């Protein structure tokens, strides 16, 4: 989107993106909304900033907090003319999470989603790797974990329980 703009707009877009890069997921704060794939589009329409986000789960209570956080971050950075829009289609998928997001999740002991959701076994959560000892000898304890986007697993090698960020 920025490549078609004159250089002055490139700078404006870069500044804007750096502000949005400080907005984190309230439930998994190590991830930014860009890491999570919730931040779908950013554009400047005749001076007005438009931020487009997409919900992870339909009932995700974090979405409202994320919208507020975006508005606070923009206001704090001096932006006055902006809107935050929600877009449903195409539906959010864990495939949209960045490689950086996967590494960050692992670093806090959360198993990242198995990469490709078109693999049915991945969708159903088989072969989840323990984020602590990398063993694949793991078992699901519950379909749901501490948030809608996670399931609870246990490692049969190191015996530690862990959260798995489900494929969706």
């Amino acid at each position, binding site marked *: 989107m920025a490549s078609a703009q004159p250089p002055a707009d490139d700078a404006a877009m870069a500044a804007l993106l750096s502000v949005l890069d400080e907005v984190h997921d309230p439930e998994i704060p190590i991830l930014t909304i860009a890491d999570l794939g919730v931040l779908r589009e950013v554009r400047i329409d005749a001076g007005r900033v438009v931020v487009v986000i997409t*919900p992870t*789960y*339909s*009932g*995700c*209570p974090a979405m409202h907090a994320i919208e507020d956080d975006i508005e606070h971050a923009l206001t704090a950075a001096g932006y006055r003319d902006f809107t935050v829009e929600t877009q*449903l*289609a*195409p*539906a*959010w998928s864990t495939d949209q999470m960045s490689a950086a997001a996967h590494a960050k999740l692992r670093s806090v002991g959360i198993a990242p989603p198995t990469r490709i959701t078109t693999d049915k076994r991945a969708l*159903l959560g088989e072969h989840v790797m323990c984020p602590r000892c990398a063993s694949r000898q793991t078992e699901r*304890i*519950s*379909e*749901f*974990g*501490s948030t*809608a986007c996670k399931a*609870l697993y246990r490692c049969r090698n190191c015996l530690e329980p862990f959260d798995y960020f*489900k494929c*969706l």
Partner: protein
Amino acid sequence: MNVAHFEYVQRLGDNALILGQRLSEWCGHSPFLEEDIAMANTALDLIGRARMLYAHAAALEGQGRDEDALAYGRDERQFGNFLICELPNGDYACTLIRQYLVDVYHHALYSTLCGSSDAGLAAIAGKAVKECAYHLRRSGDWVVRLGDGTAESHARCQAALDEVWAYTAEMFNGDAIDDAMAAAGIGVAPGSLAAAWRDEVEAQLALATLSVPRDDWSASGGRQGLHTEHMGRLLAELQFVQRAYPGQKW
């Protein structure tokens, strides 16, 4: 405005909201922690789905109402949800059996609605269908674990199935609104989902060693706003704050 279109989307929202409200009653009361979390998350998905559907319906209506007005500002006779969604939770077996029967229906329904000619509805269905698949996997697992479990869990599941079975037929008996929406390519003719639903449910019940109840009577009326005695109390709890303090926000 196309009234049938508005009503159709609003009813989809009603089913999601009322079932979500019922499931949320388990929050803090489920048999163990993981199930408490699972139940609450499923409720959240349904309430989130209701919100999207109501927002879409309100936009179709174009009268300045929003999703909160539809959820909190209507009376019992104006809700078009299936009776099965408003039935009391009963024991855990009853809640899970009902959930399974509705999950199978919703999964097929939203899979088809992904191809709706209403792009807004198709987008909502695209999100809902993924969550339905997940809900169905969980409720289907539980039906087998409890049905083919102990004598006690088996007996409770069979009793629950016998209790709610008569409320399943209503899901497939569409009215003029359903017919008009199916003809317009916006909605799905509910009857078209019946045979596949039956096959899937019978196969799962066989795995669960549960018997399919006889189809000797059935209850209906939800689409027309004719509800069971349980609906009024459910709405009283759901709507109390907004009725007492209209427009109040967190």
